[in-house]
């Protein structure tokens, strides 16, 4: 499993991606720093708004989407999955190693910059804790969901963008039922509660905000393992 993990991390971490994501993360941290040093009327609200939009709304889903869908999706598309699949390694180990590899890249580029940006705003430990917990929960749910999608669907990232932009960005704002199918709503609800900020519209309760995304992650892992057993390997 360790060798699989190392392989997937290595194939994901290309120089271009590292540079681009580091730049995006750095900008976020700088902005957070600027928010903390400004003399606006309600810096706490500004800081929360920035963490909720830049961190949870952009950085976390995009990094999780890119690396989650690529972990098994790239080998499947490139026809190199056969070198991993036709081995006496339990399918669940392949899936778990892939997911851990996706997290190993998504957490430093998604979760850590979000938490550091929150810290840079200087609005207290609650915001940092909330940002960390919310982004961890969100990255776990997004990455496992897209891990399976990347294996099964040809244009997984495009469908992931449809989910993030159309469903979460538009449809999920229209009603409670749709909001319950949005990982972003759970993440923002958790952030608002821990950071003692005003909860977003259609917010979920705290236990639900933690349990539901993690349950989604667990179910996604099980389904991905089953799919890996049954998939036609190029």
């Amino acid at each position: 499993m360790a060798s699989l993990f190392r392989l997937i991390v290595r194939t994901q971490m290309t120089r271009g991606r590292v540079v681009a994501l580091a730049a995006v993360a750095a900008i976020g941290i700088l902005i957070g720093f600027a928010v903390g040093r400004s003399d606006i009327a309600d810096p706490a609200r500004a800081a929360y708004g920035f963490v909720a939009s830049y961190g949870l709304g952009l950085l976390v889903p995009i990094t999780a989407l890119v690396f989650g869908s690529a972990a098994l999706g790239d080998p499947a598309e490139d026809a190199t999955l056969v070198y991993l699949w036709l081995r006496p390694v339990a399918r669940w180990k392949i899936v778990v190693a892939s997911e851990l590899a996706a997290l190993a890249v998504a957490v430093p580029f998604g979760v850590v910059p979000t938490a550091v940006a929150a810290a840079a705003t200087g609005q207290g430990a609650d915001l940092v804790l909330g940002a960390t917990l919310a982004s961890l929960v969100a990255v776990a749910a997004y990455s496992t969901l897209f891990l399976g999608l990347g294996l099964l669907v040809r244009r997984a990232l495009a469908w992931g963008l449809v989910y993030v932009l159309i469903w979460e960005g538009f449809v999920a704002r229209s009603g409670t039922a749709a909001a319950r199918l949005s990982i972003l709503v759970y993440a923002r609800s958790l952030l608002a509660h821990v950071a003692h900020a005003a909860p977003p519209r259609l917010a979920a309760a705290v236990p639900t905000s933690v349990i539901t995304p993690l349950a989604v992650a667990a179910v996604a892992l099980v389904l991905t393992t089953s799919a890996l057993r049954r998939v036609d390997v190029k």
Partner: protein
Amino acid sequence: MSERGAINGTARIADQGYRRYDGPRLGPDHAIRSVIAHTLRRILGLRRPARAKILPVVTIVFSYLPATVFVGVIALFGRFGAQDQARRVVPKYADYYGFILSAIVLFVTLVAPEALCPDRRSRLLSLYLASPLTRMTYLLSKATAVFAVLSMVTIGPPLLLLVGLALQNAGPDSFTGLLSVLGRIVLSGAMLAALFTALSTAIASLTDRRAVAAAGTLLLLVGTGIVAGTLHEGLGLSASVLVLSLTRAPFELVVRIYGEPSTVPSLTTAALVAGVAAWTILGAAVTVIRYQRLQVTR
């Protein structure tokens, strides 16, 4: 025996295997038109299985849906003589883009990667450049196709709204007014399409993987929006900083093109024009430089 066929009295051999092509050669213009047509088909999933059409169709339908709904509302209320009240529900043309911003952003992230990345990934670019196409004509062809497709969601929906309202006698009062609105729709839609074509092709030129290019485009569009918004509204910086926002500046310029009241009056139109032009030029420059430096064959 001639190459074309051997004729001897009552016999003729028709097929002599390989023969040179001696017909007309249609030249670079035809090559350019072919690339444009092929790229349009590829982006829209034409002549491919149904699943290749789902994403572009869903996105395009989503962008036209509000216009269809609004025209339907006008038509429905018009039957009961309440067209004027219904007209208040319908947004102004400039505001229409707010309804379909997600669809536009999604479409922009998907189109240019589909147009550019597969040619490099499959090493087909070397075949293109072995034809009468140069790197510049190849890029111009691709950019034309991307521009045309993006225009479908930047010009098409407000145009549908205009036509629908006009047919219900709820559009502009005079023919001059109609032409004026039409001109603004085309100008603002073309401006948006040109800007997003330049930026998305720039990102797509930096990576061979469509997925990475799409994610990069999204980060650029939405990220600049969030950053500029935070700097202006969160930190109270001057409104000029909004020219950095790719989800705000171009649509604010659209508002100015329609001559409607702006939500950011302190941001001058000149700054907006300069900002949008600068982004467009930057995107185009990155694309051209990247492709000029690209090593095409191994």
